[in-house]
């Protein structure tokens, strides 16, 4: 096992790659009572056109299949479902699907060896029948409908649809009621066999456990030994154009306050270090628009919003920035944002202050086994590997690199969406 030190955090991560290609990250703590183990495949809702395992031609599967598959993995041939197995020892089990990955996890404080083996076994043993696939459709349709009622969900989705033309991030993770009704048992097996091979997966455990013991269990797990692996995955990657899909779009929804979203699309093709690039953009946004910004004070003084926040997300080869607000004067607000973005000047002391804040947050986070694990998972998914020296990177922030990074960015490549209350009929 390779030891990776999380610099400045008094914490090590142990890394091992098995012969079948499975990557294992172990984060044992000295002072905790619980553990959390996550088994992930780098397969999420965006990969729908691919060459299935053992075949030669590309196929396209219905939208929402990754999420459907996640639900169906809980169906086991022996009839015992993993929730029940886990609950016997008071362990919490669940799973989730996002754009880039699907994860299955157990969180508990008892029966570590049994639970770890079981996690590997159940994710390694699909059991789909026509009947159990049909049954699931009703449940997932209800889940989709529930999200359809939530304005924040609608808002996020429409902003992505406005920014992106082709990239599958514009499609809802769960698909649509129509698309999921097309899913068949065969689709599920083909997808599973392609993306649930150990070489496309990783296992990560954090909390109270012994790394040597964990590794021994993983190496001796029979299901994992028998798993098909090392089939080269080919996924159709459509080039996402630089231009946004729609510059401006308005909607009506069952809301009382007008909501406005302003999204910016920044290409990353030429960026060498995407992590550092994203951090510098974050630094600028924080200084210019964060809780301690003069911009925010001005918005409040001029009654331009009642809530205002920002998000950043890497989707394929683009960094998307979204400003979201509740505002009765949406056009005016957006003009102010644009104007503020035209001048990226910051002061050295502002960078110094944020350094301190970010370093502190990193130390606070390491106390929490789940947050630490999540943080490492997003490193792996977004940047391909664990980033162990974040505190050092934060310390290295400087004005020169700030301007070098920021001055090249075009912040005008944008989409606006406005959601207004429905007029009474």
């Amino acid at each position, binding site marked *: 096992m390779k030891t990776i030190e999380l610099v400045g955090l008094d914490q090590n991560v142990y890394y091992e790659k098995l012969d079948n290609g499975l990557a294992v990250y172990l984060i044992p703590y000295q002072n*905790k009572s619980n553990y959390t183990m996550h088994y992930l495949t780098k397969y999420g809702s965006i990969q729908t056109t691919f060459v299935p395992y053992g075949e030669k031609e590309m196929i396209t599967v219905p939208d929402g299949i990754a999420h459907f598959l996640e639900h169906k993995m809980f169906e086991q041939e022996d009839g015992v479902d993993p929730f029940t197995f886990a609950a016997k020892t008071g362990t919490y089990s669940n799973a989730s699907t996002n754009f880039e990955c699907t994860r299955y996890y157990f969180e508990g404080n008892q029966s570590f060896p049994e639970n770890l083996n079981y996690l590997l076994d159940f994710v390694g043993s699909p059991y789909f029948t026509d009947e159990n696939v049909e049954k699931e459709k009703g449940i997932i349709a209800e889940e989709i409908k529930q999200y359809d009622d939530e304005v924040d969900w609608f808002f996020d989705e429409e902003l992505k649809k406005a920014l992106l033309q082709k990239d599958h991030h514009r499609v809802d993770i769960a698909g649509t009621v129509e698309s999921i009704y097309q899913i068949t048992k065969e689709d599920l097996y083909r997808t599973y066999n392609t993306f649930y091979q150990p070489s496309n997966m990783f296992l990560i455990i954090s909390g109270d456990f012994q790394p040597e013991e964990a590794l021994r269990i993983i190496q001796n797990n029979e299901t994992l030994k028998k798993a098909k692996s090392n089939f080269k995955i080919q996924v159709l990657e459509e080039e996402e154009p630089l231009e946004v899909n729609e510059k401006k779009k308005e909607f009506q929804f069952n809301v009382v306050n007008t909501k406005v979203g302003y999204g910016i699309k920044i290409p990353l093709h030429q960026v060498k270090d995407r992590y550092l690039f994203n951090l510098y953009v974050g630094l600028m946004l924080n200084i210019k628009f964060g809780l301690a910004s003069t911009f925010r004070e001005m918005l409040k003084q001029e009654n331009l919003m009642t809530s205002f926040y920002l998000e950043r997300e890497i989707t394929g080869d683009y960094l998307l920035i979204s400003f979201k607000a509740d505002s009765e004067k949406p056009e005016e607000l957006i003009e102010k944002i644009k104007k503020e973005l035209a001048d990226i000047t910051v002061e050295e002391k502002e960078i110094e202050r944020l350094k301190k804040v970010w370093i502190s947050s990193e130390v606070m986070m390491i106390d929490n086994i789940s947050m630490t694990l999540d943080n490492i998972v997003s490193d792996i998914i977004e940047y391909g590997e664990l980033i162990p020296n974040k505190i050092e990177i934060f310390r290295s922030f400087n004005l020169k690199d700030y301007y070098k990074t920021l001055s090249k960015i075009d912040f005008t490549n944008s989409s606006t969406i406005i959601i207004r209350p429905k007029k009474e009929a």
Partner: protein
Amino acid sequence: MNYQKIDMTSFQLHVIKTNRFKTVNIRVCLRDEIQKEEITLRNMLASFLTYATDTYPTKRELVLKAQDLYAVNVYTKSYRSGRFNMMNFCMSLLNERYTEKGMLEESIRLLADVIFHPNFQKEEEFEQAFHFLYESIESSMKAMKENPTTYSVIRMLEEMDSDMPYGYREFGYLEDLEKLTKENLMSYYQKILKNSLVDIYVIGNVEAKEIEKLFQKYFSFTTLKRPKVNQLIEHEKLPLRSKKIIEQEESNQSKLSIGCKIGKLTEFERNYVLTVYNMILGGNSESKFFQIIREKHSLAYYVYSSLNKLDSLMIIKAGISKENFEKTVRLVKKLMKDMIKGNFTEKDIEVVKENYLSLLKEIEDNENAIIETYLAKDLLNLGDIEERKKEIMRVTKEDIIEVAKKVKMDTIFLLEGVLQNENN
């Protein structure tokens, strides 16, 4: 872990020393009797106090100060618990070992500033904060229906009894907001400081002596009158049959909320038997509700029950399609009846007990959850972790059946999703 309770005359200081965390967490907990017409004031005051202070009269200045103290986090949590109004001021900071000496004192001073030096003095700054918070609260009140799951429960509890504390809206009321002025905010602030029972909890790798000294220096309450009412709400009469209310709302899904009243219980029943009962019936994904209503019959995406112990209420929530309404309610009733009939196994009880023990262990890694256990000890006379481990094992099937008989369905509320003109 070492726990010490120090009597500081006007408040109780609870220090929990542990080396498990790199942070220090502080919670200043104020309790007084809840009044319906004060909820909006309370929400406004809680936001107002953490928005700015007399020393840092704008949000920006207060945030900058917090950032300088290594991103110390200050926030309030207000809620109702039984007949009490709970106002918590929380702070979380890094242990000085990871920052620099003096930061603990500086942070406690900032917390004192938030509580004792409100932004009432500077007219312009006050107006600005007041205006912004007013608008924010107003818009979130108006947006209440945008979260149909919560809204359905609020409406259900109102239909149950809008004059009882559990029927009060936690968001407050628009008509009360409109009446808000600087004067009544100020007098409410004075009242809260004078009439509340105050407990302060500190957890982290800290020395009780030092903590005591710092709170002595910066904190002084002048509590005159303490709440005399009993926090626990008990139902004099249990319903013979339930009432049904249906309201329509434009949405895809329908939200079902069912309120059940619980009869008089012993402390052991309330603290332990009721917990086991609820976990078997609807507390998690292993429960009867989830396994039968969702898994077996595919009637709901989610269906859970939860307890408001201090209100003597159990609340059932489900997300369903409207055509499944009657069927779902029938199943819920049947499953509740099954509990009375004893149609559950020793195995079910065993699994729940395992779950409970595991939940207790989960608390050990979470500072806030540890504070809550000490708070619950005060509020419910619930034992500490070790005591709870022992007590839960005493719960028997007969105990559960006895408790099951005292849970009566009172109000069934359906927020029915209807889709109107799709074209706009």
